[in-house]
């Protein structure tokens, strides 16, 4: 590390972007559909069973997900994906997606659940089927909460550390290829703090520079999500 005199955070940001995009491709459709199922289709009893299990998924420590991604998911993916290396962005991103799925599912479910029943009945009265009611009325009415949940999911994916450190590797590469080792911002921070960091060295300062960038990204996402909710929230009596 630091043998290459060219410094820059871009390579770390691109890796974070890659794993987060893979994670969102998993978590947004699955999380949103799970939220729809839980609030619109599941009976009270089924919901009472499924929600706690999703909460358990949310409570799994991320280092455990990292172990799982590296030692269980990657070997399986290697059977299907040619050229997949031991450390790769694909399996890290996939499991990262399942780690943030409960966040998106449970916050979107709150948003969908809060849509007043009268809107659904209005849609049924116009002859819409259940699916048409959900996609054309309920999801639109709950859009601000759903978008906020997705943004929070993005913030969590960007700041997530142990899954990407263990499964994506610690090898800064500027690439969009999800099959090769990459180092995200958080993995870089773990790698640097792994050794003893002497105060005031360039190592120490780069740790804080990367940390500050990460903090700013999540802060902007958070502020944007607050703003979005306040701007687009539908008010029903």
């Amino acid at each position, binding site marked *: 590390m630091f043998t290459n005199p060219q410094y820059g955070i871009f390579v770390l940001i691109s890796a974070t972007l890659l794993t987060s995009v893979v994670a969102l491709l998993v978590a947004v459709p699955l999380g949103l559909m799970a939220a729809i199922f839980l609030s619109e289709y599941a009976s009270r009893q089924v919901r009472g069973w499924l929600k706690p299990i999703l909460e358990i998924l949310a409570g799994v*420590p991320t280092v*455990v997900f990292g172990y799982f991604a*590296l030692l269980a998911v990657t070997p399986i993916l290697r059977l299907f994906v040619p050229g997949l290396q031991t450390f790769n962005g694909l399996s890290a991103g996939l499991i990262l997606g399942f780690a943030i799925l*409960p966040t998106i599912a449970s916050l979107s479910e709150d948003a969908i659940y809060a849509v007043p029943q009268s809107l659904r009945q209005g849609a049924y009265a116009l002859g819409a089927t259940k699916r048409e009611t959900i996609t054309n009325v309920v999801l639109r009415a709950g859009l601000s909460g759903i978008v906020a949940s997705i943004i929070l999911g993005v913030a969590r994916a960007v700041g997530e550390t142990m899954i990407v450190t263990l499964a994506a590797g610690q090898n800064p590469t500027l690439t969009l290829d999800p099959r090769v080792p990459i180092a995200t911002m958080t993995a870089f921070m773990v790698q640097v703090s792994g050794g*003893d960091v002497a105060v005031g060295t360039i190592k120490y300062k780069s740790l804080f520079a990367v940390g500050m960038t990460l903090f700013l990204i999540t802060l902007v996402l958070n502020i944007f999500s607050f703003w979005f909710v306040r701007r687009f929230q539908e008010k029903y009596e």
Partner: protein
Amino acid sequence: MTTADSSKDLNQISDSASGFDSNLAGRYQQDKIFRIAALIATLAGLVVLGFLVFDILVDGLGRLLQNFPSFINSFPSRSADRAGVLSALVGSILLLIITALAAFPLGVGTGIFLQEFGGDSWFSKFVEVNIGNLAAVPSIIYGLLGLTVFVDLLFNVTGGRSVVSAGLTLALLILPVIIVATREAMKAVPDSLRLAGFALGSTRWQVIWEHVLPLALPGILTGTILALSRAIGETAPLIVIGAATFVPFLPTNLKDSFTALPIQIFNWTSRPQAAFHANAAAAIIVLMVLLLTMNAGAIFLRNKFQSER
């Protein structure tokens, strides 16, 4: 004309005259597909969770039970089959105690202030917005905060990269969760109780201490336990603060260096030898048992609370 006939007529009118094709059969088909897709999406998360638990049990149960309980009461070692989690387990429990002692009074105090005393002042609104922001900050950033404040600035108090620095950092991490849980629990206490207290001449503090807090306590404790179980699984902030990976002794005072279960799991997982991976899986089982015990406690409290009301 019967009603059946008239509805048939209506259908004909809307279908042919207006060119509108209701195609009910096709739309119901779409409904069915959509419903099944939603069910599959919900089950996907459960399947992954199930596979994860299964994989870890297969990998680690053998190692955990091999001359039980040697894995629990041995120190880490360079040879995988003599290594154990004693110092990591003790470190995690010590962290749990320090974190709870620091976060509980601070978090509950803040919650009481914001809910009962804060009112609508700009100060409480400012604090509220920032608690929301804090909750979304990645945990590794809290590690940087701990590194600067507890390890560097307060070196003389904490002894640097010590168990107390780590405990205090984790306390900061879960503070927003405890504050929110406290506020929610106190919000659920009916206002009539407060008004009755005031009507009898109690001061605000007497009302809170003798009436509101006892009713809110189970909710507060549930939230605190869930927050603590999040803290105990955290790895990234501990790495940044500088948890040691090889600690062949038990900490004797709060300024000692330390390790914790997640750190030990991370260390063993990142080694190339398969024997250490089995150790990592066994340590994960120990961690999960600890977490499940805490969560069961939280659920027990919640149920007790709900049945009593």
